[in-house]
């Protein structure tokens, strides 16, 4: 911040720790109370909702000042655009979901940690072997509550070439072979293989806890899972590795970024963009200052952020710096980083939160009911999602 303010002495940044500002409860209240900061943090999942509700400033006219804009992988900027291509925010962090796995458990189960599963059949086999290590071991963990189930269903559906909604965003499109394959695979792992543990209805923190406790073999996720599990849930980061989503030509993109208060004037918007460009989009600076992150004791070397297009100079520059200051074995994450170049990032469906809430239903059903009828579950969910899309105009 000092470096930024030395460069732009006419801009003063007042930082407010609104943590956990990622909890949406405070968002509407702050807007209503006129206490929203000029620049505020959002998850990708929420950006479209905020844009539709006209709760963020249109920054399109000011983007000329963002030097690294051209280096951002276009799908990651897409999450901040409306249907007309107007831009309402800038990404900070971006990833596509892959497969996160515990290398130590792989080794104990007689699997090669350097050869993570490339197909879902291999995931099944690996999960069985890990679950067989003894009580409390979960071969493969999956979300099915609090909207997280729908989120992962979407990711796995994209990975199998499916879509949640039709291209015009008006109808559900998941009731097909790809959707059935996602649910059938989970049902088989849960009930035929018994490799997913007895406890279900997992939400985000539940799998983090399992990963942190070293009893979870695999889960769908991005490498930031490793950092989170290590920093807040007691995992040893050197035990964790990441690979691309099995068989996936495409995967759900995720991450977060910043939007700007719609009440901010042009000067504040310009100042905000200068700060975001400096802090979040410049290799070697701000969030990409790996030297400083290392000195602060943060894990360095995990490809948490694949914001840049693969051909961009910024991508090469950042990867080089990340490796130079690495504090974790970077080769454990190389399969993910190398493989992600071949995985097409896909944005979330419209009304993501409402759609995910519906899709929690089939996910929880196949994981908690041995007799779950996948065809019926998908048909019912399709009707419900169509109702959601009709109600909100897609």
């Amino acid at each position: 911040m000092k470096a930024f303010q030395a460069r732009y002495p006419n801009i003063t940044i007042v930082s407010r720790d609104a943590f956990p500002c990622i909890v949406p409860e405070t968002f509407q209240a702050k807007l209503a109370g006129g206490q929203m900061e000029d620049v505020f943090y959002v998850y990708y999942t929420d950006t479209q909702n905020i844009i539709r509700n006209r709760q963020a400033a249109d920054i399109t006219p000011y983007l000329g000042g963002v030097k690294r804009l051209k280096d951002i992988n276009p799908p990651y900027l897409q999450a901040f655009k409306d249907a007309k291509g107007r831009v309402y925010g800038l990404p900070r962090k971006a990833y596509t979901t892959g497969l996160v796995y515990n290398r130590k458990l792989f080794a104990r189960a007689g699997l090669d940690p350097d050869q993570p599963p490339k197909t879902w059949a291999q995931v099944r086999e690996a999960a069985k072997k890990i679950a067989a290590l003894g009580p409390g071991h979960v071969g493969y963990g999956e979300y099915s509550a609090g909207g997280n189930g729908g989120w992962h269903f979407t990711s796995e559906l994209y990975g199998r070439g499916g879509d949640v909604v039709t291209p015009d965003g008006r109808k559900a499109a998941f009731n097909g072979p790809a959707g059935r394959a996602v649910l059938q695979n989970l049902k088989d792992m849960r009930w035929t293989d018994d490799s997913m543990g007895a406890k279900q209805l997992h939400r985000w923190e539940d799998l983090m806890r399992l990963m942190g406790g070293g009893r979870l073999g695999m889960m769908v996720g991005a490498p930031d899972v490793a950092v989170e599990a290590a920093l807040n849930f007691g995992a040893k980061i050197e035990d964790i590795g990441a690979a691309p989503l099995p068989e996936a030509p495409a995967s759900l993109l995720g991450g977060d970024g910043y939007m700007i208060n719609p009440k901010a004037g042009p000067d504040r918007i310009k100042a905000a963009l200068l700060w975001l460009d400096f802090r979040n989009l410049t290799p070697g600076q701000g969030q990409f200052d790996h030297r400083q992150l290392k000195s602060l004791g943060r894990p360095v070397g995990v490809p948490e952020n694949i914001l840049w297009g693969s051909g961009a100079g910024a991508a090469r520059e950042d990867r080089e710096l990340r490796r130079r200051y690495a504090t974790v074995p970077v080769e454990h994450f190389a399969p993910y980083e190398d493989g992600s170049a071949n995985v097409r990032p896909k944005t979330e469906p419209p009304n993501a939160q409402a759609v995910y809430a519906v899709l929690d239903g089939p996910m929880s059903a196949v994981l908690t009911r041995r007799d779950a009828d996948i065809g019926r579950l998908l048909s019912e969910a399709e009707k419900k999602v169509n109702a959601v899309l009709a109600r909100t105009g897609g």
Partner: protein
Amino acid sequence: MTMLESTPRGGDRRAARGGRARGPGGGRHGRGGRSGRSRGARLGPAARRNISAYGFLSGALVCFAFFSWYPMIREFVLSFQRNNFVDAPVWVGLDNFRTVLQDPAFHAAWVNTVAFTLLALVFGYLVPFAIALVLNELRHARAYLRFVVYLPVMLPPAVSVLLFKWFYDPGPGLFNQVLRLAHLPALSWLDSTGTALLSLVIVTTWMNLGTGTLIYLAALQTVPGELYEAAELDGAGALRRVWHVTIPQTRLILLVMLLLQIIATMQVFIEPYLLTGGGPEDATISVVYLMYRYAFSYGNFGGGSALGLMLMLVLIVFSAAYLRLSRDNT
């Protein structure tokens, strides 16, 4: 130029600025001057006492106005508006009500809420009364047992709920361990559509057991002992004494507790929010949890307010019955 930025970590924590309503505290009126004394003299001692009472009351009135009545009025207004808290709100008539009525989860939320309320009556209403009856009969360790029964109330609800998350774990969870020791089949508890709602009721009952038991116990101790003696002389057994003496003598408190319990349990939120996320398959989604989803997940305060208004109308019926009952018996 000053730019404000909210960050996920670091920086200074903003102090909460809750509106602190300060009552006048029945302060002195006037400064001892003649006019003050003469007004006081004119009003008389009863009126002067009332002025102090109104002074104290005004603090509570300000608090209620800010934190209860104003939000209720805002909720009513919001339920007829589309409001993004940036632009001027737009009046949309009954659109928000149509939206929530067409929501596939609406029906499930109401069915679950009513089922939860009824189950909570069976467990949460009868169990504390039964425990109070037993405690009332005990001669020894009564204080200790009262403390033990009240202990769960002292735990923050979130802690109690998370404790039960472990109890209900189908693998190493406490309840299934006990079932296995007894050679009984393990249950899926929260993970089954058949048992999830009941599991939440058990949590609620456990959390609120202490308060209910203490209130019933206090009521039982007001029943004159000679009534029991007379019943015993007439040959009444324990159950008949409860039926013919205890229940008629504590009828008022039983009715009040019944209504209060209905009003409280129909607003169930924390249990599904923390334990099941409304699942599996919407088996535990409640009306208040659906309200939460509308307001905070979907950013649709209009829809959330419309749901809140519907629930409020239902609860008003029970609240009116409660007020009537209180008035008739005072």
